[in-house]
C-alpha cells in the first residue's frame, strides 16, 4: 500500500525527505518558502537524496523550461492541468 506524504512548500518537503527518503517526489514549481527548482537543486546536491526521481508539475512550463528542469535533474515534467491518466502513466514510467 503506497504511503503519501504531503508538504506545503519546498523547505518542508526537503526536511521530510531528509528524515525519510521517498521513492518518488512530485512537486510544483511555484511555492512559498522554497520553490520547486531550488528543492530540485538541493536534492541533487545531497548524495542520500539525489537518486529520488522528481516529477515536476507546473503551469509555467514550455520547451525551454522543460529542458532546464530536465537538465537540473528532474525525471519528468507535466504541464497543468494534468489528467489522472497522464499522471499515472508518467509515474509508472518513472517507477
Amino acid at each position, binding site marked *: 500500500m503506497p504511503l503519501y506524504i504531503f508538504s506545503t512548500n519546498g523547505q518542508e518537503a526537503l526536511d521530510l525527505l531528509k528524515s525519510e527518503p521517498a521513492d518518488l517526489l512530485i512537486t510544483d514549481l511555484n511555492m512559498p518558502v522554497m520553490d520547486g527548482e531550488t528543492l530540485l537543486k538541493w536534492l541533487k546536491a545531497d548524495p542520500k537524496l539525489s537518486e529520488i526521481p522528481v516529477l515536476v508539475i507546473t503551469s*509555467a*512550463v*514550455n520547451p*525551454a523550461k522543460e529542458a532546464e528542469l530536465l537538465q537540473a535533474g528532474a525525471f519528468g515534467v507535466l504541464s497543468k*492541468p494534468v489528467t489522472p491518466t497522464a499522471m499515472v502513466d508518467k509515474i509508472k514510467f518513472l517507477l
Partner: protein
Amino acid sequence: MDEIKEDLRLGINKTVCDVLKKMALMDVVPSEAPAGDVPDSNWVSLAVLHPIQGEFILKMSTEMTKKVTQAIFGVPESALTEPLLKDSMAELLNTIVGRLMNSVLPEEQTFRLGLPVQGQGKCPGGDNTALNCYFLMDNESISLIVSGETLLQMLFQLLNLL
C-alpha cells in the same frame, strides 16, 4: 488602447474557457459585464514577474468557488475547507495564466509568475487601463482582470503574431 483591449479579450477568452471547462468541468462562455458587482466575492491575484510585469485577478462568488473546488478535487460539500477553497482558486488562476503565457510566448522564452495572493470582497488592482473579461459559468458571472499596460501590449502583440 481600447482597440488593443478588444482584440486581446478575444484571445484571452478562448484560453480561459478552455482551462475552466477542463478543470471545473462546467460550461463556460464569455459574457458581457454583469449588472452589478459579484457579491461576497472571492478573489485571487497572480503577478507576472518575467519577462514583463503585470497582474491577473480572478474573481467569483463563494458559492461558485465551492462548486469549482468540488469539481477539481472530487469532494463532497462537507469536505470543503477554507484552505481547499483557496487552493482551488489559486490553481485555477495559475493554470489560466500559465496556459496563456505558454500560448503567446516563443518556445525558447521562459516566464516567471509570483505566488497567488487571495482575499474576499473588493479586490485591489484593476485600474482604468486594466482589461476586464467576464464569463458565465453555471449561469453565474465570474471575472478575470488583466492589468499592466506593458503586459497588455505584449499579449496583444504576441497574440496578433499567432
